[in-house]
């Protein structure tokens, strides 16, 4: 019965992916991509990755979808690119078929029993003081990955900002929004923020013991902020603003500070002394949360576009 559901889900996923790739209309392709992201969330649930399902729904489907819709609307006036020659199409088909065949052979040849690190995590999770294994991996066992991830996000934002025209520097990202102040969008942007704030902080807080965490929570907070920006109730901060820049580096710097503390108290960079593991994990998360919210939200409007107001 479950396999029947899996099979139906897989068929729809493949159909949507084919639509994303083959659709003539770019807007239709983006719409299909958002539906694809949401259905992929179900696939993650079937694979017992609830934390991944939350991340996929929030970032893979939601935030990426909003980003691509904005891009496709701004590119509407661009002239269409020359269609691919039949030579290119044939090459692409061969490359795709070869990739799929080789990977499928690898999947069929996966070793049995599968290698796993789960027993190691189960043996050592008690030391960290958190109960969600994913959070323990992200912030204790492999915290170097999470530190580098936070820095990658920061670099992506710096990269996007550096694409701004000289004349717009150091102005505000994105275009001014002019939604009617008493319109339905402004109404939505007034009633949703309190609810979104509670849900975002809850998802962040419960991530220590249940599925959830700072990325998912930060995405919800970022979405709420973007909603108020789209409704014209708030405006994106100037990229030259000192508080913004300080807040953007505060998260990674706090993380590095905890890491340096670890090299004194526990003998290695980013090591956590067992008696203080939980408070230090919490310190990292609280330091990262505002930075992640700012970066995830500001990656959408992109480079600065306006110098005034």
């Amino acid at each position, binding site marked *: 019965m479950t396999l029947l559901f899996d099979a139906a889900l897989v068929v729809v996923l493949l159909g949507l992916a084919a639509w994303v790739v083959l659709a003539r209309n770019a807007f239709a392709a983006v719409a299909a991509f958002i539906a694809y992201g949401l259905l992929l969330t179900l696939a993650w649930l079937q*694979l017992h990755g609830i934390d991944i399902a939350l991340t996929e729904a929030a970032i893979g489907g939601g935030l990426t979808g909003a980003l691509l819709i904005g891009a496709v609307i701004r590119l509407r006036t661009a002239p269409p690119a020359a269609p691919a020659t039949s030579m290119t199409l044939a090459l692409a088909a061969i490359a795709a078929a070869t990739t799929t065949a080789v990977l499928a052979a690898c999947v069929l040849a996966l070793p049995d029993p599968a290698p796993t690190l789960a027993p190691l995590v189960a043996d050592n999770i008690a030391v960290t003081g958190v109960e969600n294994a994913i959070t323990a991996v992200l912030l204790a066992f492999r915290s170097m990955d999470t530190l580098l991830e936070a820095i990658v996000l920061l670099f992506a934002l710096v990269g996007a900002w550096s694409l701004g025209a000289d004349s717009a520097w150091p102005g505000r990202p994105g275009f001014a929004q002019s939604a009617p102040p008493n319109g339905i969008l402004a109404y939505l942007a007034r009633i949703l923020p309190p609810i979104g704030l509670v849900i975002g902080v809850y998802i962040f807080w419960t991530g220590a013991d249940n599925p959830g965490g700072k990325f998912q929570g930060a995405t919800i907070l970022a979405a709420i902020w973007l909603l108020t920006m789209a409704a014209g109730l708030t405006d994106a901060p100037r990229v030259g603003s000192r508080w913004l820049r300080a807040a953007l580096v505060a998260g990674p710097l706090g993380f590095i500070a905890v890491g340096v503390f670890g090299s004194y108290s526990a003998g290695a960079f980013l090591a956590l002394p067992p008696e203080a593991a939980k408070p230090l994990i919490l310190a990292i998360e609280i330091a990262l949360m505002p930075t992640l919210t700012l970066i995830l939200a500001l990656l959408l409007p992109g480079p600065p576009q306006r110098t005034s107001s």
Partner: protein
Amino acid sequence: MNDTLLYGLTACALIGLGVFGLIANPAPLRKILAFNIAGSGVFLLAGAVARRGAAAGFGGDPVLQALLITGIVVAFSATALAVALVLRLNAVTGDVTLAEPPAEPTDDND
């Protein structure tokens, strides 16, 4: 046929579709979309492998699952940067194709 095999093979097909779109579709925005399809296929493949590693009371290998969360976030940041590049290319040249030599860079006042 068990569920990990089903999702693993689906992931391979998704990667193939993404590779096809990446090469065959001339518009950069569509290449970004295709790249995301291929990326999600890679994630799904790793997710199937993680599910096979279910042990010690976990529904999947938590180390691999945590790395997937990192992967999804990094893929979003790469997509955002790529979209910013395409929009800037469009603002400067009025075009979105990578095929022809770029026009004279002009100071745009958009």
